[in-house]
């Protein structure tokens, strides 16, 4: 049978493309953020902060597009689930952009030559690399409606969470020097931001599963972790 509502489906596809391109913007922002962190590059950090306006702009654009589509086209079934999922995805894009800003803001505060604990910095940089990969994977899973790939994000997130806990251990053992301890405290904020971004990527994976199955379920339940009643 001939395709009907072509204009509507083109519009929906375009909104998805825009929302997922928002994830590319986040990946760029995160890579720059981690580069700025490793090099103490205050200017690059400032660029990340300024560029967040573009991510916020993308959020507003997609959000407005979705409201308009809902009002005019009344999508149903898979289309409706996609629209609902896109609202979620674009929110995560905006949140992850803000996390990059949170990290970037700490960079000038640590001073020109901070008292770095190498093990803590390298752990954070490794977390950054892994979270970048998770965001890319969440995009790929969503675009391909690949539930298996989406569920795989859980184990990757667990690895990031372990590294986050490791950051605490290293910070606690940072020694007596006040400046070093202060730096380590700030880095715990960075670790926390990265850990949250990993969660955002998992949430996007959950939305992928929602589109495909029609049922929303959390891949892992933070309030009722397995084995704990």
């Amino acid at each position, binding site marked *: 049978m001939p395709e*009907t509502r072509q204009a509507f489906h083109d519009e929906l596809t375009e909104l998805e493309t825009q929302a997922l391109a928002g994830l590319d913007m986040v990946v760029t922002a995160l890579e720059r953020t981690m580069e700025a962190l490793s090099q103490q590059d205050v200017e690059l950090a400032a660029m990340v902060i300024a560029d967040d306006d573009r991510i916020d702009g993308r959020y507003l654009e997609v959000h407005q597009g979705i409201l308009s589509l809902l009002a005019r086209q*009344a999508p*149903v079934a898979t289309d*409706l689930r996609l629209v609902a999922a896109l609202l979620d995805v674009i929110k995560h894009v905006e949140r992850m952009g803000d996390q990059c800003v949170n990290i970037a803001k700490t960079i000038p505060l640590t001073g020109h030559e901070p008292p770095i604990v190498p093990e803590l910095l390298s752990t954070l940089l490794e977390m950054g690399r892994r979270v970048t990969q998770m965001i890319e994977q969440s995009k790929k899973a969503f675009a391909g409606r690949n539930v298996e790939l989406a569920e795989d994000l859980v184990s990757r997130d667990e690895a990031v969470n372990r590294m986050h806990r490791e950051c605490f251990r290293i910070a606690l053992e940072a020694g007596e020097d006040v400046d070093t301890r202060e730096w380590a405290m700030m880095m715990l904020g960075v670790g926390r931001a990265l850990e949250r971004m990993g969660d955002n990527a998992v949430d996007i994976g959950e939305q992928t599963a929602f589109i495909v199955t029609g*049922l929303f379920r959390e891949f892992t339940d933070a309030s009722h972790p397995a084995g704990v009643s």
Partner: protein
Amino acid sequence: MTIPLTSSQRGTETEQAPDQKRRFEPSGKDQATGAGRRVSIKGLSAWYGDQYAVKELDLEFEPNKVTAIIGPSGCGKSTMVRCINRMHEEIPGTRVEGEVLLDDQDLYANEVDVTSVRRAVGMVFQKPNPFPTMSVYDNVASGPKLSGTKGKHLKERVEQSLRSAALWDEVKDRLDRPGIGLSGGQQQRLCIARTLAVEPEVVLMDEPCSALDPVATLRIEELIEELKTRYTIVIVTHNMQQAGRVADSTAFMLTGELVEVGPTETIFTKPTDDRTEQYVSGRFG
């Protein structure tokens, strides 16, 4: 032939004359609070000449629920609904097989009186069709008059029906004016009042709003919501949003067959059958 009525049969029927066919009397329910009756379609097939319109269809309509029938033009949804009050057979060359049960009574049983079926199962059509030469009052009164209601009772019945159709306040001062002088939406509510006046158990609506403007449409939809507390309602609609707004259950038909039936929310968020998905999301139709 006399058909003995067993005690299990609902109704207020009394001894029948030997040549009388069995009639579907009101189930004795309180019209203000009573429940509608379940309609069960079993293995229903309908033809126009050699052409199938409905094919071995099974479907149930729950009492006091609104069920919407959706599907592309020519899918057999109107024919199926017209089989429920035995209107399909009025067209020359048509044929019906299968069962339509009102609770446990088969509407197609040989001994059944067709007129009483149409009283028990009322129908509202696409285009408002008030009797053109009759006043507002007579449009509603004509049905109950035929069954012998008169005087004060008739007046009360007319008022009650017009109130139930949410039209009373608009027409109470011009009951003697022609029915066709009302607006399109009012005419349709007049037709609903006319249907309710004979105290049906089931109300069928075949595209009742397709000739109405959006405001008149919403008024009819509000009315449907109210009527379902007393009747079983089946509505055929091309308007998917309307099905979403008014129906508890939605059934999707294609080429004379039932593809899927389920809670309206499920049909419009996660239908089971791919053809339903394609249709409700407008990918064909």
